[in-house]
């Protein structure tokens, strides 16, 4: 039997936790707006340069690592995976994913979920437990450890399942306008006022043909 073909992108989880509509616009409608923020984010990812990290003995650092989890049909790329020597691991080392974020965080939770999803991929690919990783905040140059506990794993698997549902339905859900919309790079393509059914084209057209007065 052929494997099922729908795959969830690691990056989609972050979009989903921020806004289901944003996730569907990007991953179902495949819309994307490159603005200052996304360009900066991309630049940061291209030039991941973590201070003092390649230095420790025995520690290997891999960048732009392709990841996948067949069980969850999840795929994507990790900015950076460190491989730490670890005697308790059957392979002798343990993967440690590091996700790089810009300073202005949209959602801490979303970042942790994305990182946890990388861990799930690494566990399946290497056959070892991955209990921990870190978020690296670009502008602050600060690293924050993240433990992949049962709660975070459940949250992550639920998010993957919800994203699969969105992709299967192929529809963009309507959501009400919210304060977070201001931070969204897709705001100009989202047109929430139309989706909310507040505007009718027939009324608009009628006004356009009304007689004018001099």
């Amino acid at each position, binding site marked *: 039997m052929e494997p099922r073909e729908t795959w969830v992108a690691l990056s989609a989880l972050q979009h989903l936790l921020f806004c289901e509509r944003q996730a569907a616009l990007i991953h*179902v*409608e*495949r*819309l*994307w*707006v*490159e*603005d*200052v923020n996304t*360009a900066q984010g991309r*630049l940061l990812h291209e030039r991941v340069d973590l201070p003092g990290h390649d230095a420790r003995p025995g520690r290997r650092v891999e960048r732009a690592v392709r990841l996948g989890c067949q069980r969850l049909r999840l795929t994507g790329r990790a900015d950076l995976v460190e491989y730490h020597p670890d005697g308790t691991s059957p392979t002798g080392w343990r993967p440690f994913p590091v996700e790089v974020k810009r300073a202005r965080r949209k959602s801490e939770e979303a970042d942790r979920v994305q990182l946890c999803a990388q861990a799930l991929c690494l566990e399946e690919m290497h056959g070892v437990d991955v209990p921990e990783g870190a978020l690296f905040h670009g502008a602050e140059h600060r690293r924050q450890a993240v433990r992949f506990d049962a709660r975070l794993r459940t949250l992550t698997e639920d998010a993957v399942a919800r994203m699969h549902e969105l992709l299967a339905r*192929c529809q963009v859900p309507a959501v009400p306008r919210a304060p977070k919309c201001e931070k969204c*790079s897709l*705001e*100009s*393509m989202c*047109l929430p*006022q*139309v*989706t909310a059914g507040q*505007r*009718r*084209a*027939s009324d*608009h*057209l009628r*006004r*356009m*043909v009304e*007689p*004018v007065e*001099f």
Partner: protein
Amino acid sequence: MTTALNTLFITLEGARLNKEGERVVVTLHDEKKAEVPLRHLRSVVCLARAWMTPELLESCVEAGIHVSFFGMTGRFLVRVEGLPGGNVLLRRAQFRVADDGARTLEIARAVVVGKLGNARQFLMHARRDAVEERKPVLEEAVRRLSGHLRALERAEDLEQVRGLEGIAARDYFEVFPSLLKGEARRFTFDGRNRRPPRDPLNALLSFGYALLAQECAGALAGVGLDPAVGFLHEDRPGRLSLALDLMEELRAPVVDRLVFSLVNRGQLKPEDFKTEAAGGVLLRDEARKAFLVAYQGAKQVEVQHVFLGQQTSWGLVPHLQALLLARVLRGELDGYPPFAVR
């Protein structure tokens, strides 16, 4: 909100475009002519024969920056695109609607309402600023357009819609000489002509429409629609029919308004054009540059989007309209709402 509205126009014959860091660098004979951050760009338009490195092309495609090449007269040659944008299901919906006579009629009607409505607004604005003796001519044209708009509501098939559009276009272009002021009256205009345009005003209109059509095509492709499958304009090989549909409502407020403001302010004069042996009229290089600068400036101007109830810029209007059209085709909107000029 995207700020990347800028178009980089290349008018230097033999220019070379390459990528340095996150910037586009334009050189001519090893001399640096311009440098622009990629993230400031929405499109790159080459109006002269130019080179572009594969690295830059790759970055443009990835960042969603449209790259197109035109001949010197504004004749479209090629547009470079990555994977088709949007969703294949949306394109299927577009084809289904295009095959559905009743729905095609409704969209075509809306497109012509947009065109005539905005042409009427353009003449209304011109009338306000016109000297007294010219007002009656413009008022008469406005009244005729109003009549055609009313008739459109009753049009029962596509042929009637297209017929009304044709009559309205004649009535509209007929008053163009009345829009010329002062020194600009040296320009003459005896109706719309093209392929090739045979007077300077027609040359300007053709050039402006060619640029706008490509922007509309890019906007449609960007939301995943097929720019070649139209409603008012029937399919014809080699024609971007949907881009032409989308352009109708924007012709008067974007191109016609720009053309008249340039000639009436004396920024373009009859001497800025040259006539070829067979009668075709071309913009001279300096005039072409002046037009492009003004066109780019016009795209940054803020306007009210009446239907969406938000401020936007002229440059984003084709994209917003393409998004609205996509929603119509998916059945999420009750009809196509053309951009309405206040």
